[in-house]
Each structure stands twice: as C-alpha cells, then as structure tokens.
C-alpha cells in the first residue's frame, strides 16, 4: 500500500504545556482515520501540524514521501506549499470567505494557482457543487447559508484543489444536531471514492461506521491505533474503555 502520511516522534508544546508528546502515525492511501479522544488531548493540534498551521518542536512529518518537516526543520514557504498541494482541510467553523459568493469561494484558489482556465474551473465548480448537493447556491453569499450548507461549501472548496488527503477538524461540532447528517453524508461519499481522510470528531457512531482506522489520543500520546472494533469496542486499554463507556454513543 502507498503511504501518504508518516509522522515520527512529533512533539509540540505551547509555552510550558506539552500538548503533543510523542506522536507516531502511518496513514495509507484510502485510509479513513477517525481521531478520537477527550478534549485537550491534542487532536486538533496534531491535525493542524500536518498542514503547517502549527509548527512542531521536534520530529518528522512526511506527506506522500516528501518531508514537510524533518527534525523540526521546515523548508521554504514555497516548498511547503508544493508539498501540501495535495492536502486540504475543513474547519469546525467553516472559514468561508464571507465577502465572496459560493462560486468565488470555490474558484479563488485554483484560479490564483492557475490550475485551469476560467471556463474549466467554472465547469468543475458546478460538478463539485452538485456532488455536495448545493448547485442552487452557486451565487449565494455564505452568510445566507445554514451551517450544514456552509460546511458542505467548505468541503467543496477543498475539493476544488484535487486533494489526495483531506483533514477534518471537528467538521460537525459547530452544527445543530439535525444538520450534521448532511455533512457526514458528504464525508461518507468521499470515503467511497477512496479519499484519504483524517477526521477529528466526537461522532463515535460515525467513526465506527465510516472510518477504517481509529487513532485514540489522550494527553498528547496515541493510546491506541487500530480498527474501530479493536479500539472502540474491544480495547484492552482501561483509559480507552472508560472513555467509550462514559460517552455511550
């Protein structure tokens, strides 16, 4: 199997708080990894380090064989952009560009990066919006969309750059419960298309059904890594068992 993400001995602290203590991870192509664990365990920080939103203190990160960071040394901004070209991210609070229409949100990055002519990208915009079920919102402003719609636009925006890896940082945590389904459906569809994904989430049911691997984090360590059955249902680690017993998904 092709290895898309490799993380070795990753460490990160903010001030004198050690957030990530020794993280190791291998993600293969088409893996869907659910990153679970209690609040403050470092899940988001870890995810953000994979796309250079957080600079790590030591360790290595390889994206599709290229070193984003080796012994905490990063390449130039230009090289980092090149290495992360195939990595996209979806945020908890969507972070759509509020002054641009849905269409402009989708087209801005590929246009600036010259990833196609305007006509090609317009066609692609429609195709991807159709995939997330929002064709009719092409010319809407983000502030006129519901939370679920905003998040689907955010996913569509990430897809415009043809990512091979998609990172989701609590994609449904800011949504009303009745709106999470539409977003989770889109993520499910992506997993069927063999998109490699890391998803920080509190939706244990979804993790169990859609992920093929679960990474359990606690206090800056990876306590468990395996199939959903191994980690969620049959872990031999007491902390992990307690966690899932308490939340009773």
């Amino acid at each position, binding site marked *: 199997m092709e290895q898309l993400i490799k993380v070795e001995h990753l460490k990160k602290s903010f001030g004198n708080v050690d957030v990530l203590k020794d993280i190791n991870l291998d993600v293969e192509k088409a893996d869907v990894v659910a990153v679970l664990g209690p609040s403050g365990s470092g899940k988001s920080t870890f995810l953000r380090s994979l*796309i*250079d*939103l957080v600079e790590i203190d030591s360790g290595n990160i390889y994206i599709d064989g290229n070193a984003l960071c080796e012994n905490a040394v990063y390449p130039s*901004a230009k090289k980092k*952009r090149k290495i*992360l*070209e195939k*990595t*996209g*991210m979806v*945020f908890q*609070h969507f*972070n*759509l*560009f*509020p*002054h641009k229409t849905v269409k402009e949100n989708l087209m*801005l*990055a590929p246009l*600036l*990066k010259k990833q196609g002519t305007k006509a090609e990208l317009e066609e692609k915009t429609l195709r991807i919006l159709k995939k997330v079920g929002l064709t009719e919102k092409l010319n809407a*402003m*983000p*502030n006129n969309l519901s939370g679920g719609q905003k998040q689907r636009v955010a996913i569509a*925006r*990430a897809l415009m*750059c043809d990512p091979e890896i998609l990172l989701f940082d609590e994609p449904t945590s800011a949504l009303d419960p009745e709106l999470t389904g539409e977003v989770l459906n889109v993520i499910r569809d992506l997993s069927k298309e063999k998109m490699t994904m890391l998803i920080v989430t509190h939706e244990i049911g979804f993790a169990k059904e859609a992920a093929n691997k679960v990474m359990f984090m606690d206090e800056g360590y990876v306590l468990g890594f395996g199939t959903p059955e191994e980690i969620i249902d049959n872990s031999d680690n007491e902390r992990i068992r307690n966690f899932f017993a308490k939340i009773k998904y």
Partner: protein
Amino acid sequence: MTFFQWLPQMLEGCLITIKLFFITIAFSMPLGLILTFLYTSKNKTVNKIISFYILIMRGTPLLLQIFFVYFGLPYLPVIGEYLTITDRFTAGAIAFILNYAAYFAEIFRGGLLSVEEGQYEAAKVLGLTDMQTRTHIVLPQMFRISLPAVSNEAIILIKDTALITAIGLSDLLKVTKTIVNKTTNVSAFLVAAVFYLIMSYILTIVFKKIEKKFSY
C-alpha cells in the same frame, strides 16, 4: 450687499472647502493604509516610528499642525529653507493629509484586527501565498469593516476644513465671516451652516450606498 451678491462668493468658498476635502481623502487614505501595514509589520523599529507618528498627529491640535507646516517649517534649523511652502492651500492640504493619514491608519488597523484568524488559515490551507491572502482575503474584509468609521471620519473632515481659515484661505467659513462683517447681518452664517449640512448629508448618503453595496 444683497443675498444674490454674496451667494456666489459663498459658493466659491465652498469650492475651496470641497477641493481640500477631496485632496485630503485622496492622499490620506492610501497613506493611512501604508502606515497600517508598516505598523503591523514585524520590524520593531518601524512599529515604534509609526506609533510615535500617530501619537504626535492625534495628540496635538490640527490647527497647530497647520500653523507648523505654514509658518513653522521655514524656521527649522538647516533644513528649514528647503521646506518653505509659500502656497497657503498646499501647506494646509499637507497638514490635513498628514493628520488624517494617522486617523485612517488607526481605523484600518482596527479593521485588520477584526479579520478572523480562520480567514488566514483557510487561505493558507488552500495554498495561497501571503500576498494573495492579503489582496484577495484580508484587504476587502478590512475595508468593509472599516467603512462606518471611514464615513464618520469623512464627515468630521468636511467640517474640519474650516480650520484653514486660520491661514487666510478663502474657504466657506472665511468668506462667510467677511460677508457677516460687511453686511452686519447674521444670515450668512445660517446659509453657511446649511451648506455644511448639505455636504455632510451628501456624504452620509454616499457612504450608506457604499456600505450597502459591499455588505455581505
């Protein structure tokens, strides 16, 4: 001297007022923007220089600054003789531009701080360069957020222009005062008030339109 004799003079005064207004806006806003970016740059020395500049410009009266540019500069040792500005309007306009640039810099800085961190992060994960992020994401939002404060500042400016009366320019206020002296009648003051009101009102409407156009 009848109403129809002095009205044209007042309109001429209005023209000077309006000219000063537009010249100040046209130069002080871009200058303010440059100051904002210098101020938010990582260079500590540059930061200190800009914040000192803003302190001086906001902390001293505009009238004093106008006097300083027009009467004071020539007396500066060594460089004074090169800085003599004989044209009253130019001197006044320079003082206005320097002063308003400081206010606009602060307004834009506030707008810049209001752009959420998530916008920078979204731009970064989409592979935008810092320059692209600035021009396509940050600046448009900063301008939109700053608009109400800019509008407020513009209305203050149209009235502040009256200060150039002090260096002998025939703006609306100066002309009016002369007419009042000649006619020994207060009605010219009332007409001037109406003129200022009309100009402020037009500004209010224009900015409301701009705000509406750029709302999101």
